[in-house]
């Protein structure tokens, strides 16, 4: 396969940045999207060019490091698939692809396709945990958790923190990310005790970081590589209302 790429090149957060054209030649349909970029970089290195910087690590769709906007869609066209698990057979010979970083005011560009997502860590640091000291806990099976509750919590906990939801949202909202952790912990008995402080702390951190609010576009769910559902945003809103001073 041969493809034409338009790739966002930006030398740092202050640089203006622009799209540049590259040709990806003789791409194997069995290679992953990132392996295709590896080969483009390989050629850039051999011809004295500057390789494209992009974040990636596990390359099996779980660490949440990779991702860029491919033809307007975060992680590209395949449903529930991270960029590293997207394979080139999803495209056709002669296709043109435009590659951009996650665009959101809370995610400054570091270089090219790599962005700074530490705002997501700040949200977790603002309450996305239970305050269980190591060692000070009871026997695991003393607290029963119904299977539906455990499954619901797990559905939410599948979030990999990649930030595609933010990139897909016209408001640059991190509601899907935040709601996934709020919903997981609010559903489990271990997390219920601190539910009020958690939802207040995390939503405040979300707003302070410059993420927008949810206005029900559902682009986040559509783009989420783990299929995290917008029903958790409804749960977040319920938890938020429950936490309002009476």
């Amino acid at each position, binding site marked *: 396969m041969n493809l034409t790429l338009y790739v966002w090149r930006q030398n740092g957060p202050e640089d203006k940045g622009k799209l540049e054209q590259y040709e990806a030649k003789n791409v194997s349909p*069995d*290679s992953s999207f*990132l*392996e295709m970029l*590896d*080969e483009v970089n*390989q050629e850039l*290195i051999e011809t004295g060019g*500057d*390789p494209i910087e992009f974040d*990636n*690590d*596990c*390359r*099996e769709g*779980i*660490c*949440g*490091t990779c991702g860029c906007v491919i033809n307007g869609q975060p992680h590209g066209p*395949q449903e*529930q*698939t991270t960029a590293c698990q*997207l*394979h080139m057979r999803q495209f056709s010979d002669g296709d043109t692809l435009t590659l951009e970083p996650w665009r959101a005011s809370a995610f400054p560009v*570091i*270089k090219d396709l*790599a962005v*700074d*997502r530490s705002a*997501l*860590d700040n949200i*977790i*640091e603002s309450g*996305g*945990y*239970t305050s*269980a*000291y*190591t*060692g000070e*806990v*009871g026997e*695991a*099976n003393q*607290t*029963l*958790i*119904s*299977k539906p509750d*455990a499954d619901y*919590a*797990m559905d939410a*906990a*599948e979030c*990999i*923190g990649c930030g595609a939801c933010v990139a897909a949202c016209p408001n640059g909202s991190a509601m899907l990310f935040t709601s996934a952790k709020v919903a*997981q912990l609010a559903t*489990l008995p*271990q*997390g219920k005790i601190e539910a009020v402080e958690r939802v207040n702390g995390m939503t405040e951190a979300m707003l302070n970081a410059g993420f927008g609010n949810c206005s029900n576009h559902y682009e986040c769910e559509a783009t989420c590589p783990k299929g995290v559902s917008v029903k958790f945003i409804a749960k977040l809103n319920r938890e938020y209302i429950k936490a309002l001073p009476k």
Partner: protein
Amino acid sequence: MILDGKCPSGPIEKSWDKHCFDMKLVNPANKRKFKVIMVGTGLAGGAGAATLGELGYNVEAYCYQDSSRRAHSIAAQGGINAAKNYHNDGDSVFRLFYDTIKGGDFRAREADVWRLAQVSNNIIDQCVAQGVPFAREYSGLLANRSFGGAQVSRTFYARGQTGQQLLLGAYQALARQVKAGTVKLKPRTEMLDLVVVDGVAKGITYRDLTTGEIKSSWADAVVLATGGYVNVFYLSTNAMGCSVTAAWKAVKKGAYMANPCYTQIHPTCIPQSGDHQSKLTLMSESLRNDGRCWVPKRKEDCEKEPGDIAEDDRDYYLERKYPSFGNLAPRDIASRAAKEVCDEGRGVGPGKRGVYLDYESSIERVGEDTIRERYGNLFDMYEKITDENAYERPMRIYPAPHYSMGGLWVDYNCMTNVPGLFAIGEANFSVHGANRLGASALMQGLADGYFVIPNTISNYLAGVKPGEVTDEHPEFAKSREDVQARMDKLLNVNGKRSVSSFHRELGKIMWENVGMARSKESLTKALQAIPALREEFWQNVNVTGETGNRNGQLEDAGRVADFLEFAEVMTNDALNREESCGGHFRTEHQTEDGEAMRDDENFTYVAAWEYKGEGKAPELHKEPLKFENVKLAVRSYK
């Protein structure tokens, strides 16, 4: 030199409790005066940094990823072992201890393994309290599954994402400490030197991967939780950023590397499809609970569609060779068996390097929905990569480098031979012997992080004056100069070959000569090829970009340069160990039916290697292993 592991004496059942009581403590009010550096934030590092923070120490936690939530522990799929005996199937701390010692082919320290088995139950309690959404029964109780190398059901899991959920539990505990101000996170940094002052570890030098700055930080103790080194094979199941670099820098400052030849080749990975490939993808061992491994009995059937091969013409080779463990034979044995049938020309798929893992009979037995619930995400991942539907057609799998049992030599306190330098999780060598059982890596990471290091580091710090050496000390400036000089050296080669081409070539040398089967001949060949490749690297590598900026090529170049040195020590270890045990299979040492043959008389020891400089042979130090609670026996899974 004979090394002393400093294991506690007396009955093993009481060894850890007694040791905890015997260790010195640091007064709660004094803890905040001590600074501890944690390098790596996976299960061991994340759990350790969080717990040390909870105790009141000043912790700095470093990771190369952009967030501490992304360490490669996250990719562990299948589960975590614990001796809860919830199923009343005869499990106990002793059985978990025994299975781990036997699974490691009698090459691990008894006391360390006992401690691991003992705290395994606390880990599950801790994770549940953190809100880790483990799988549950309809009763509301925790669910279990079986894993290789065990005949009891002791593995706890969260769908196919157990590592992710456990890591997020540790990450959240860490986030809580960040908020409390006890832990400072340093993401996007890479440790590039260990600072040693008067023989004691006192800090690190690191590169800020965003700005390219070289900085140092002092501490009263340094803990490496930096994972394993199987990316030395280039293609492995490890993440792209996993490397031996942090551990290797410690080795160059005097720490010993123990049993580096013990590498785990995981039996169930997706076979390689072509030369473009950058990594291999693991399919959880839990798949072997319900999947059956087979290849055609006759070579000429290999090209046929699997559905066209009659039941009688299939060789379910694991069930045939190991009737009592069957498809749940331990990893090293299952991997070698797969290699064997492929070497016989009976492999399937591209290049005939693959075997089938078949769900047909399980789907008939329990239904497709149940299989989907158990392994749905794995089947999906398989389809994305191979474009094949494993509900309808058997998966193709082949072994791939996955885990390193070897690592930095540590004593019972997880301290290396360099005082003040600790190593935990996969970065040390201590509990898995020559082969790790499934669902034991998560157990070890969290055991070391939550329960071992918080105790043993206090014992060390109780004898240290806090802040005695800071980064004002001239060793720190010297360390930064050394690191900068190496960066400049890499950038100034200006050769013709890319970094990754060297990594690929090294990987090929290692996989072919120091892989699943090794011989004196292949190892000698590797020992000639590695230094030659290293020499070419330093003459002909092309590293683009500059130091003072984000530069992925420079990061990779540094890691590959370290692998090129480490690989030689690893090969020397494999050559020295004239026996077969666990993941280390020397073709000269096998039984008539092709099983590993240990030499207990001459090799019941830990081989700890001291680096003596480039071009010089590393020096071997031995730690004899004693078995007082388990009888040395031939490891049989028949």
